[in-house]
């Protein structure tokens, strides 16, 4: 199995590793770097639990090889909270509005919505539904997730004003 040198930043921290070409980004983050907040559900790009940001764009970490992230900046759920542990507005809203139950889909939901809210400052409920139409949750029935996303958008807008 051929090995490849990979250099990338994850949550602002630079990492250099030599890895096998077959290792996907999810396994690299979870096993090689120990960032287990990125969850693996279906392992074929359907459930969205493993969603992370690569150069700010959401990707399914189970469908991307780690070597493809060479030279890029990755953000995972561990990178959302402030250095002092303070939750970001989206995390806080998920907690406050019961946007989660078992929590397994939550990291993927948060990462998908992080990208969405950056580009949609005043989203409608319909837009939120569309944005996370590709992230599955088996517990909540989604109502709390939509409420949380809308609340986070309002909070971000208020903080930015």
């Amino acid at each position, binding site marked *: 199995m051929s090995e490849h040198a990979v250099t990338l930043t994850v949550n602002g921290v630079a990492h250099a590793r030599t890895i096998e070409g*077959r290792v996907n980004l999810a396994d690299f983050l*979870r*096993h090689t770097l120990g*960032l*287990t*907040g*990125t*969850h*693996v*559900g*279906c*392992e*074929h*790009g*359907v*459930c969205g*639990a493993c969603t992370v940001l690569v150069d700010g764009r959401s990707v399914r970490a189970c469908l991307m090889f780690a070597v493809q992230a060479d030279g890029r900046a990755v953000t*995972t*759920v*561990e990178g*959302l*909270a402030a250095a002092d542990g303070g*939750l970001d507005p989206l*995390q*806080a809203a*998920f*907690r*406050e509005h*019961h946007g*989660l*139950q*078992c*929590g*397994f*889909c*939550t*990291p993927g939901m*948060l990462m998908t919505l992080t990208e969405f809210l950056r580009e949609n400052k005043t989203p409608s409920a319909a837009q939120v*539904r*569309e944005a*996370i*139409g*590709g*992230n*599955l*949750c*088996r*517990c*909540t*029935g*989604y*109502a*709390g*997730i*939509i409420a949380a996303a809308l609340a986070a958008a309002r909070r971000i807008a208020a903080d930015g004003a």
Partner: protein
Amino acid sequence: MATTPVPGGQVGRSLPRLEARDKVTGRAEYAHTMRLPGMLYGKIFRSTVPHGRLIGIDTAAARAMPGVHGVYAGEDVRKVIPDPYYGPAFHDQPILALDKVRFVGEPVAVVVASDPHVAEEAVALIAATYEELPAVFDEVAAMSPAVLVHDELKPAGTFADLKHLKGRKNTNVARDFHLRLGDVDKAFAEAAAVFEHEFRTQKVLHVPLEPFAAIADASDNRLTVYSGTQGPSFVRSELARLLGWPENRVRVKVPCLGGGFGAKLYIKLEALAAALSMLARRPVKLALSMEEQFYMITRHPTTCRIKSGVDKNGRVIARKCEVFWNGGAYADIGPRVTQKSGFTAPGPYDIANVAIDSYALYTNLTPAGALRGFGVPQLVFAYESHTDMVARALKIDPVKFRRDNLLRAGRPQATGTVLKDAATDAVLDRLAQCIDWGKPFDRGSGPIRRGRGLALGIKAVISPTTSVAAINVAADGSCTLYCGTVDMGQGSDTAMAQIAGEVLNIAAQDIAVTPRDTDITPYDMGTLGSRSLFHMGHAVRLAALDAKEKLAAMAREVGEPDGSNTPVAELFRKKYGMQAGNVIGAGTYKPDYTPPDSKSGQTPNVTPFWMVAGTAVEVEVDCETGHVRIVKLVNVADCGRAINPRIVETQLSGGSLMQLGFTMFEKMNIEGGQVTNASLADYKIPGMLDVPATIENVTVENRQENGPFGAKGVGEVATFGVSPAIANAIEDAVGVRVTVLPLNPEAVLRALRVKAGSPLDSE
């Protein structure tokens, strides 16, 4: 800080979940994510035939692969567990197949390797030979002994109501339950009209987003298992039984669960992981893929026949229910579903003459077990579809027909147990009100037609079961709660802390809830069947009261006047001269219960509480394609007193959406015993865009008098009415009746074409 009196109670607060912070930061730990030092990975080689004698397994190529630590088959397991059959109801399931395989996907051998990918590759090098046997897949066909899945019934002895089945041969009926009330034959003869219908539900599965995972770490006299299980106490006692060890040598630790819904009950991967760790003499992890979940546990497909006799006033005077539960190859908890849910088959109706015959059948499919409702959603689909069909045939308004026949609090249910604290009236009234029943509405035009439907169901919590809890008050006054209820997402940790906080006058978020660990947390029967809030809620309440009384005694001992407000930390300092000591409160709860008569099924006390809920919908049917769009969906539940209203709402919303998937599209496609859609890409579960445009959750607050602070379980109730409400609304819209789930476009279009006199070709 922790002892600061809290203004207002803890019960009734919509407190954010205690563990939410860990879950939004990625800190929460799940079994699927855990790793131990020196750990090996197991991957399972599975049967490719539904029924066959195992002739041989060739593992040589797999053993020779670099990185492979060992390859183990059924006979290897016998070296460490001589009698390797397990199960909660029957000891019928081998840890790895021995003489026979009984379903496609049954574990036959395991490769243990240092890397999961190596293990997976080595599994592909294993070859097994089988002598194929005829197989049986259909639950009604399995009533005949033409194909026998098991030679003999082997009840576990755990449940008294199954002991009589021991040694039965020449049958696939794992459990038969019968109930007789009044004289059903005489009543049918006297009825003005008799109606009989058959309903079928399909094979669906739980799909927790975190697939099953367990790690076992065995040494010579100690076994530790880390597992995403809903029932650590059972896992411990069953592993101890298999090993012939006392329970105190087996430890089961439970990290967060990424969903459970009944799948992660009883033994699933734990016995296999334990055997592998003992054989490999290293910690071994088994973590399934999403695909492999299709070969672990599913819901019961059912065939349900209902016959009703109605008098000239529109009163149902007789009902006969025949229910066939397709339990798959191993019993799991199926025999209990057959009785514990079977006795509610006549529905929430006051019927003087009832006969129920309920059968658990072995077939050559993936085993079936508990799934959010324990069989009740399948029954409600049958009896509430039937109720509408009868009402329409009699030209009686379906809501009026329900009102006229409703079982109300104070009246005996079919078992003879009197219904108490069950707001059947209020639930039905709110359903009708929320969907504007009886009012004119836009019925659509052209190919798009609209209709409305509703349905309600009833469930009895499983009884008798036991929960134990403990509370430790530290010398600074802070409290730690020990309870075995597993928070798999339903919010039990938060609710239990609220109950303890209510008694002790402490803010719930200041109470630490200890992670489940059988060395530390006391016994609990299991997190299942909406029992936890009631049973464990009581145990926690009693433990908190015990601690409170002990603190009061300590106050008297150190000379505090009655009713003194002295902080708890000060009491400890006074008693011990420093910050030292503990007060430990304990509580045990087990409700009263009277077993049903073995012939008539009658008992004055079948359950400590009843669940009542329903769903009303408005749908749009496209007559050209058969597509059904749910315009509005309203869930109404009697939830007793809500301990945490927001969590109740989430449970209702989540439960109904899950059932909406089981109603509209979820289906395991099975050909010749082989599941052909075993992946999330091919087996669709509801996504954001499947949520009805309007969804409302309404709770009818109705204090459960014997519940902790008036509360009762609510985790399953929103599943009850969804399927029949939609089927009823489809008939209301376009005049066709679909009696087989799912109500997918094909099923609806076929029914429409039959009605139009131009049926589609069969499949």
